[in-house]
């Protein structure tokens, strides 16, 4: 990992105090984001992936939420120790968010332009006219046709895909160093999804910002990520370079996630079982209960520490990778690996045939 990352999250613990007890939503999560890099956080609902990103700029509801431990270093400053005023300056300025539902992220009673202008003027001292011109530029940047006239439209006059573009324009208003996108394409059609993904990558190239992209879809991850963090029940299961992750998924959970992608192969394999309790997490590895490779040692102690899997930048929290055990049990399991490979080949094959011959 680079010596001086843009964002460095160490041992983050975020809890929620509820009537039924304390929910350990994020339980000791660490990762780094380098300048200009796209990091994907992948996991099912309830894995704590959104809470992790919300903790960074503290946009989660506090109380009941509380950052109970850990450090978040953004560009050399410890964000966890900042006052609310200081964090507000960073939020929307140097770090901005894009959320899942484009329908509710824009206020229906203001024009799109007015909302982008507001985002600009919140952090920059610009006149109304200058801010409006900047808003038009931004809309043009995110691919809204005839931006100069659409800037005065109300959100309901925009389609879902255009709304998400407008929201991205808002997030870009202050040329952030880090863009946090929380499932920005989940509510959209596949065709619009691929437009938005392409847009994000183009914008990243142009502005050189870092992106944290939260999703539950490993298909999307492969399109956009440089590095991937796989989360499960508040813990990180695997951290890897995107190529390492897909070429040799190390954690049984990652493998299970890959195997249940619909449409990728002939047979999908549901993971089975349910997420463990977050108020009273079980001993040992959080995934052990649903894991087909689980052995007795998986059910005792804490979540296993990180062991090196296939590459230098590929770490996995699974005891099979400890020197004492044999990782080939997982890595060379023909059933799992076989399905994953055919999945890629068939779909990739279909794709090249589909897109290739007529163009």
């Amino acid at each position, binding site marked *: 990992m680079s010596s001086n990352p843009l964002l460095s999250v160490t041992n983050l613990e975020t809890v929620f105090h509820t009537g039924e007890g304390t929910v350990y939503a994020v339980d000791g999560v660490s990762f780094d984001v380098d300048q200009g890099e796209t990091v994907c956080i992948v996991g*099912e*609902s309830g894995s704590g992936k959104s809470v992790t990103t919300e903790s960074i700029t503290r946009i989660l509801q506090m109380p009941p939420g509380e950052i109970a431990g850990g450090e978040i270093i953004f560009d050399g400053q410890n964000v966890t120790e900042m006052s609310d005023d200081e964090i507000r300056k960073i939020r929307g300025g140097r770090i901005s968010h894009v959320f899942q539902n484009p329908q509710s992220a824009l206020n229906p009673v203001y024009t799109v332009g007015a909302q982008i202008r507001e985002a600009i003027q919140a952090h920059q001292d610009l006149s109304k006219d200058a801010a409006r*011109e900047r808003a*038009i*530029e931004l809309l043009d940047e995110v691919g809204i*046709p*005839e*931006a*100069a*006239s*659409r800037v005065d439209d109300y959100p309901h006059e925009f*389609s*879902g*895909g*255009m709304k998400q573009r407008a929201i991205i324009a808002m997030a870009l208003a202050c040329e952030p160093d880090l863009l946090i996108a929380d499932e920005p394409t989940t509510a959209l*059609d*596949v*065709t*619009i*999804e*691929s*437009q938005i*993904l*392409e847009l994000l990558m183009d914008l990243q190239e142009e502005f050189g910002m870092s992106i944290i992209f939260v999703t*539950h*879809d*490993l*298909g*999307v991850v*492969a*399109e956009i*990520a440089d590095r991937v963090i796989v989360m499960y029940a508040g813990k990180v299961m695997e951290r890897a370079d*995107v*190529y390492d992750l*897909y070429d040799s998924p190390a954690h049984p959970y990652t493998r*299970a*996630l*890959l195997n*249940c*992608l*619909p*449409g*990728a192969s002939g047979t*999908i*394999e*549901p*993971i089975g079982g*349910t997420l463990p309790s977050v108020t009273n997490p079980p001993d040992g590895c959080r995934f052990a209960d649903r894991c087909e490779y689980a052995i007795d040692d998986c059910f005792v102690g804490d979540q296993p520490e990180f062991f090196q899997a296939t590459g230098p930048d590929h770490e996995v929290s699974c005891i099979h990778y400890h020197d004492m055990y044999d990782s080939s049990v997982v890595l060379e399991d023909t059933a799992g690996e076989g399905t994953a490979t055919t*999945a*890629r080949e068939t*779909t*990739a094959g*279909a*794709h090249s*045939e*589909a*897109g*290739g011959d*007529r*163009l």
Partner: protein
Amino acid sequence: MSAETPLLEVRNLKKHYPITKGILKREIGRVRAVDGIDVSVRRGETVGIVGESGCGKSTAATTILQLEKATDGQVLFDGEDVTTFSKRELKRFRRRAQMIFQDPDSSFDPRMSIGESVAEPLYVNGMNDRARRREIVGTLLEKVGLQASDADRYPHEFSGGQKQRIGLARALSVNPDLLVADEPVSALDVSIQAEILSIMQDLQDEFGLGILIISHNLGVIREICDRVGVMYLGQIVEEGPTDEIFTNPQHPYTRALISSIPVPDPHRSRDEVTLSGDVPSPANPPVGCRFHTRCPEIIQPDGYSFEQATWRHLMDYIYRVHDQNIDVESIFEGVVTEQEGYDDIEEVPLEAFETRLREEFEIPPSLADGTAEQTLTDSIELVFAHDLEEASAVLSAEFETVCRQEKPAEIHIEENHRASCHLIEQDTTAVVESPATDD
């Protein structure tokens, strides 16, 4: 297989919503949500309808189930036309054709225990015997992987995936022959989707159901369907066996959809066909082939051989001029905001305007073909002068494509595989003319 009467056969189904105005509700137009579709589902077969939001696929589902009255066309269920059914016959049909819904959170009455919800179709269809209802509910809940004792719990105590299983149990309670699933998994996590889809497959094997799945997710369709219909703006543009569609897609829209499925392979280069823009409004669908306004493979006029992307961008411009909805002021304003030296719209010269317009539509500064370049420059001059009608005339004299002029005919590529696209018509080698569809 083909000799047997299909369980469901939809012929030329249309559902139009009138757009009315004034107190007298005078009809001033129609939203053609579903505009003449043919689908058939056999027993034990899973058929998918795929398309973007706004293509009318959900309306197709509710219209097939007679939850909305069809404007035109027939829905044959076991050979009988459902659209002409009496109230009593309709009730019997509804028992045999069940539906599952997209949003697991809103598909259960929060005031009813899930046992009551699952038993509702039984009760509504006249089964008064409480004990028997309870027994059936218990069996069904176990079949979808829950426990019989869960019947007394309330919807908010279940996760989205569990609710979707309960939705399946409810649909199956009256032992239907047909199951219509409207986006059954799109509100769920990918990992849960796999579970629901595999339960659906198991239940289909067990009960011999015919399933019609509506989805925007080609991955889901590919996973579970035997046949697929690709829907665009109220019409089915291509239909065929799933494998055929995925390995040999004929319609450019199908190809675009397939290429936009995210593939879990970071090595793949991004050469995909992204569709520009959104689906046009079904209130005013494009003439000719409905997809021509977004089609990346739109056919060029005779005698031209532009780079396909250039031609696409050129056509975007031409259509905007034809439809008179090019925003001239916005281009002027664009010049004023983005370029130095102009303070007012009045000051913008033709050259700056032309550069800006070409940028806006991504048309290269100069076209290779001399005639084409001349026509384009002429038209831009007219647009500059706000004379859109004349500009439109100039453009249509030179650039016209068959995609806009004619509706494509439906062509059978193979026995089970049909598509409507002018490209296939041109490619006459492997084509059988469509049989007459007036029945």
